[in-house]
């Protein structure tokens, strides 16, 4: 088993739910330190794909490469600690304050307290959260603020890979665009590989470098953003683009 040089790579990955295939022999490599948007209609297989990357779903067939190595499910928790993960509805823990939510992985991995505090202050300033918010509980925040806390939590250990599963799906357009700006600012400061699942073409257009279009469990097109938008590979892609314009 040789080392494969790929931050995230799929080799003939197939996943079936009972008899329906959610992913069908998918193969790709993700470009390092770039933002890749996985786009397509609901039920097309995008959510399955992103959860295969951090091992929440174990594929029926094929090989998954993360951080240049074949995904080792017996050490999956260690690998997950190196992957930032943020979902729609934020998944903030309601019984923990903002500070405790963000600090959790630091506590678990044995980071020292002032290091955690320093990192939290930095991250919160990037996403424009006032320091006073640290003591608040998630339910006291707006949807946009909760999502920002979710980003800070995922970024605490400075992972080189960040997965966003429809993370901004429920936000209103203006909040969404503010968070997009903050995310790009953070990306400039500490670049990392970001994979985001979205059904919103404008979001992909705005922040992604690359777009992967998935439909019927297969990749219809995967290329630089401009290429996908200007020269759709087939009618699936074309129809999706026109439907959102």
């Amino acid at each position: 088993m040789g080392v494969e040089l790929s931050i995230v790579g799929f080799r003939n990955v197939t996943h079936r739910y009972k008899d329906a295939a959610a992913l069908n022999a998918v193969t790709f490599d993700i470009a390092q330190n770039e933002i890749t948007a996985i786009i397509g209609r609901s039920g097309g297989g995008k959510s399955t794909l992103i959860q295969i990357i951090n091992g929440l779903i174990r594929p029926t067939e094929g090989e998954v490469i993360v951080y240049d190595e074949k995904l080792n499910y017996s050490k999956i928790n260690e690998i997950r600690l190196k992957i930032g993960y943020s979902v729609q509805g934020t998944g903030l823990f309601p019984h923990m304050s903002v500070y405790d939510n963000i600090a959790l992985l630091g506590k678990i991995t044995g980071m020292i307290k002032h290091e955690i505090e320093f990192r939290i202050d930095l991250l919160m300033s990037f996403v424009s959260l006032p320091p006073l918010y640290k003591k608040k509980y998630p339910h006291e925040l707006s949807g946009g603020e909760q999502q920002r806390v979710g980003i800070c939590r995922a970024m605490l250990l400075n992972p080189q890979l960040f997965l966003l599963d429809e993370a901004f799906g429920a936000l209103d357009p203006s909040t969404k665009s503010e968070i997009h700006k903050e995310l790009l600012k953070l990306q400039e400061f500490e670049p990392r590989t970001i994979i985001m699942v979205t059904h919103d073409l404008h979001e992909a257009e705005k922040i992604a470098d690359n777009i992967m279009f998935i439909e019927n469990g297969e990749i219809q097109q995967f290329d630089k953003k401009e290429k996908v938008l200007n020269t759709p590979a087939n009618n699936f892609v074309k129809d999706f683009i026109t439907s959102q314009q």
Partner: protein
Amino acid sequence: MMSKLRNIALGIVIILLLYQSSFGQTIRVGSKHFNEGYILSEIISQLLEANGYKVERNYNLGGTKVCFDALYNGDIDIYPEYTGTLTEEILKLDKPLSFEELNKKIKFELRLEISDKFGFNNTYAFVVSKETAQKYNLKKISDLKNHPEINMALSYEFLKRKDGWDNLASVYGLKNKPVGIEHGLAYQALDDKKIELTDAYSTDGEIKKYNLVTLEDDMSFFPKYYAVAFYRTELESKAKEIIAGLKSTITEDEMQTMNSEVLYDNKTFAEVANEFLKKKNFISQNGQLETGGMYGEILKKTLQHIKITLIALLLALVIAIPLGILLYIYSAASKPVLYLAGLLQTIPSIALLAFMIPFFGIGIVPAVAALFLYALLPILRNTATGLFTVDPLLKKVATGMGLSVWQKLKYVEIPLAMPAIFAGVKTAAVINIGTATLAAFIGAGGLGEFIVTGLALNNTGLILRGAIPAALLAILTEFVFDLIEKIYVPKHLQQKLEK
């Protein structure tokens, strides 16, 4: 320094030993759950105390089986019993023995002993009102033969016993069709003319009170029920001698009077026993009966009650919460285990308490064991359900972040299941406070003692003396738990639970 401390400790131990020995052996006196049993036990207890013994009173021990098992297993040292019961129920013999043969057989087969007869014979008797006696011209049981129409209601025990109705009917050739009735209600039913005849104990105080006629057992069907003290062979011989002093001191009439005094003159068992011992010159005429006073008693029993409940609850917490967590992790086992725990819950409390006696004897231990079993289910179920119902998105996120199974439990799932776990503990605590009142039946003490004694005496005041503090305790428990929850669980999570 160390040796000085050791000397002091040694001194204290010696003083304690001397103190203890000056009072003699502690004798544990038991009693069945009925008035005459209480009075006789109290006579034995006070007589022993007057002679320098320390006495531990384990009254309210239910029926013959509970008392006998307790004596046999060494949980009590002595209790009053009847020769008929010894023959029929304990030795299960078909024919009555002479007193000497009976004593021998008890020594040989059970390795226990009985004292000489106290005097009276408290056997079964058939009683009717004066009017009924006149109406049918009844004097003897055999007179009933010509009156199959007489409306009989017999105690359930009498209907079932070997020396009960079936045999009596065949010996006397009776064709009546008796119905069952709770003995405590039979006198009232007779007085209200709802029934015409019932079985009674020949020393029942009610016979006097209701002016009833006892039918003569002209064919000597009923076995003799002479009261004796039933005790362990290991009892100090000096104590046995003291008990032997009660030989032939209580007549049937005196026993009837004592029974009627506790029922109708509002005297306590202790007072009646005390007056008897004074009258017979067993204790000095001017000796004062020590009583703790009503409020002292209530406080003492409330503390006992809290103690039993709390120990059982803590044990249940220690077992049920980890078990609930395991059920969540190994969810395949959750259904059968919760089902089993649910099954335990359906066992009637009294049955469960009685079931504990062969394993744990009598007193606090079996009561705690039974209460522990009752507390298990609510805590177990709420812990498992609380964990199962944590928002699946949060579980997914926690896993996706890289938390191990245990970290996920510790930081996310258990804290979020806390309100549910808390509710389970609260339910268990309240159930336990209620059920603990029944623990008095197996000698565990607590507020139930008032209730059990009150039921025996048909004394509502006494019942309330146990029931009101128990109810207050349950309310207080709810309140305390709500308070702890308020402090412990973040406010917004409490509100979520209420919705």
